[in-house]
């Protein structure tokens, strides 16, 4: 039996420690992992728990991230609770196996500490890795701060392991800004944390020796489509209601409330910034200042990136006159991913909103309050004109001549 750890009601943890503590409290059976900045401390902390008797599952340090996820897949198919962590280049190396994990319907939890992808090599936070995962069939939850990183891990296990879902889930947090910034984190006791998620309930487990199973079959044009369609069906119909239920249960237990789409002063907002991660907090601060200056400003934070909360977001944005989609990843040849998603969300609705796209913060560059003030200024001009007065895609915080597109 693993030892309990006495936690204070509020611990000073960074996002990495928050995620590691959640993995410890749900008593993961197998963690197979490989270190990479900035997610390394998750793995190190877990190794420390393992070395000191706070976890009694297996801790497998593999030779690569691809090997880590491959071991996770084998372990999950064998029938138990499985988790790992990675970032950036490691995430990219895992990509092949991410599709395997979701296609095989294995509820693995992957903590992704978001980081840019080279070249040029860069260790700081942006959302390139997160976006790279978006077609991989995983659930993607987004933490804005260490508290979220802790809480959303419990949500992720609860939803992913549900037998109506059986899909893997990523919990994202911003590299350094969240992962290495210590804040007060409200904790659960080990008992509370574990029982929120509960004992792992195996299904089609290879280790049930009386019921052999075949995992990872071949399908061609005869059956491949049906398999992928069933996976998509589960993502589109089962997952969001399950996440909502988990959020509700979690609020009952802890008082902390999460929403599929996080909104800040959106009830009467005329202009809105939509963003992810740590930028949400900055945007909210600026939004409050803009409100004080008389602008009916709001902020929308994406909490669930996959499956995309299309209906919920359309509802939230229905009366807005101008929307800015903030993307922290280079779209390399098109509009940003959030811009695309929001455009897809608003098309075929009554909306008259003007939608513009801002690319920011690549490779860890700061998003400042001044940047956001400029964006709100653009939004006001667009809302007043009822049409775009600025280019569709602009960079913010970029050195040198102004680059903009469309």
């Amino acid at each position, binding site marked *: 039996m693993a030892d309990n750890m006495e936690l204070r009601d509020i611990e000073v943890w960074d996002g990495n420690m928050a995620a590691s503590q959640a993995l410890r409290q749900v008593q993961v*059976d*197998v963690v*197979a992992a490989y270190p990479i900045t900035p997610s390394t401390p998750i793995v190190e902390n877990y190794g420390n728990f393992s070395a000191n008797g706070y976890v*009694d*599952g*297996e801790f*497998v*340090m*593999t*030779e*690569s991230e*691809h*090997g880590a996820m*491959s*071991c*996770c*897949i*084998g*372990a*999950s*198919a*064998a*029938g*138990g609770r*499985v988790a790992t962590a990675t970032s950036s280049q490691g995430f990219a190396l895992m990509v*092949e*196996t991410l599709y*395997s994990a979701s296609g*095989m319907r294995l509820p693995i939890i992957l903590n992704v500490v978001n980081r840019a992808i080279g070249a040029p090599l860069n260790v700081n936070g942006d959302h390139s890795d997160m976006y790279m995962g978006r077609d991989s069939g995983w659930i993607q939850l987004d933490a804005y701060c260490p508290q979220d990183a802790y809480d959303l891990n419990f949500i992720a296990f609860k939803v992913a392991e549900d037998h109506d879902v059986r899909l893997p889930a990523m919990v994202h947090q911003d590299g350094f800004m969240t992962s290495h910034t210590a804040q007060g984190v409200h904790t659960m006791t080990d008992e509370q944390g574990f029982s929120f998620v509960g004992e792992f309930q195996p299904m089609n*487990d*290879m*280790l*049930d*020796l*009386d019921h*052999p*199973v*075949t*995992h*990872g*079959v*071949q*399908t061609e044009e005869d*059956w491949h489509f049906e*398999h992928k369609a069933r996976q998509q069906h589960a993502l589109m119909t089962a997952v969001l209601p399950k996440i909502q239920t988990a959020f509700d249960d979690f609020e009952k237990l802890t008082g902390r409330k999460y929403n599929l789409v996080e909104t800040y002063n959106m009830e009467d907002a005329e202009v809105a910034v939509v963003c992810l991660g740590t930028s949400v907090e900055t945007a909210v601060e600026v939004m409050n200042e803009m409100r004080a200056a008389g602008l009916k400003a709001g902020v929308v934070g994406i909490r669930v990136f996959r499956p995309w909360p299309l209906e919920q977001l359309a509802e939230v944005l229905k009366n807005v006159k101008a929307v800015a989609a903030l993307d922290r990843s280079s779209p390399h040849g098109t509009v940003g991913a959030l811009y695309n998603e929001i455009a897809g969300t608003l098309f075929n609705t009554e909306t008259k909103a003007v939608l513009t796209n801002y690319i920011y913060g690549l490779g860890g560059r700061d998003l400042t309050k001044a940047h956001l003030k400029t964006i709100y200024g653009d939004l006001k001009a667009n809302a007043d004109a009822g049409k775009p007065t600025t280019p569709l895609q602009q960079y913010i915080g970029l050195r040198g001549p102004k680059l903009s597109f469309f």
Partner: protein
Amino acid sequence: MSEIKKIKNLKEFSTSADRFEGANLLCPGCAHSIIVREVLNATNDDLILAASTGCLEVCTAVYPYTSWDASWIHIGFENGSSAVAGAEAMYKALKNKGRLKQPDRKPKFVAFGGDGATYDIGFQWISGCFERGHDMMYVCLDNEVYANTGGQRSSSTPIGSSTTTAPAGRTSYGEKKNKKDMLAIMAAHGAPYVAQVSPSKWKDMVAKIQKGFAAEGPVFINAISPCTTEWKFAPEDTIAMTDLATDSLVFPLYEIINGTELNITYRPKNIVPVRDYLGAQGRFKHLFTKQYEYLIDEWQVRVDNEWARLQRREEARV
């Protein structure tokens, strides 16, 4: 430790409970299926199996069918080893936590991979698994070619073999590099047991598989697997082809215990000339021309030298 299965004779062996069904899509005469059956039938213990992408995988688990009557997993081309290692880690975790459904049964963990999956693309994963010491057996189905994708070279392809990516032609005799010495590499990991086996020398093979199952830690088995399609011989000659390989010493049968103790386990009474082995297969047909004939003599010298080296190592016990 579980009991070692007693196998009296070939008849009993070939008719013992079969966890790999004859209903599969492998070519008639494919040695992969013979090897797999011999491995599985060497034990009565429960089995958790993995396969890497390749002929074995695409021919035995085509939805909605499966040829496997034991738990089996496939992820990709390079990671069959890690799939089984992950399952083995989960077994340990659940055993430790008292959550195994059949706590008194200890399954064996076995991964199968082709030479492409083993010598080439999957090498890093296998090396990782062996270094970490998972209690598993890795069996390479060595047909010296990427058969599943139509016969491209691998680092197991021997000199002079014609493959689709190193074809013989007017100015080339085909493969230029000699086969990688995978057994030495795996032994160098300090694995408790590594061995080369041939499905036609079934007693030798079963003894080695059983030794491998009895060993604690990662075990590597390299099995010669003549491929009727890519080696170009008649499907009914598969066993004859394995005999030619072992009796010409092109594929010597030996084992290495704990990385150092090398034992030759089969010494042919009549050593067959390498020429006979090469001549039986279409992939070497072009060597029997004036232009490339010198390669046959080089082959013979290479095989003789290697046999001498193995004997020296056996004698030296290092």
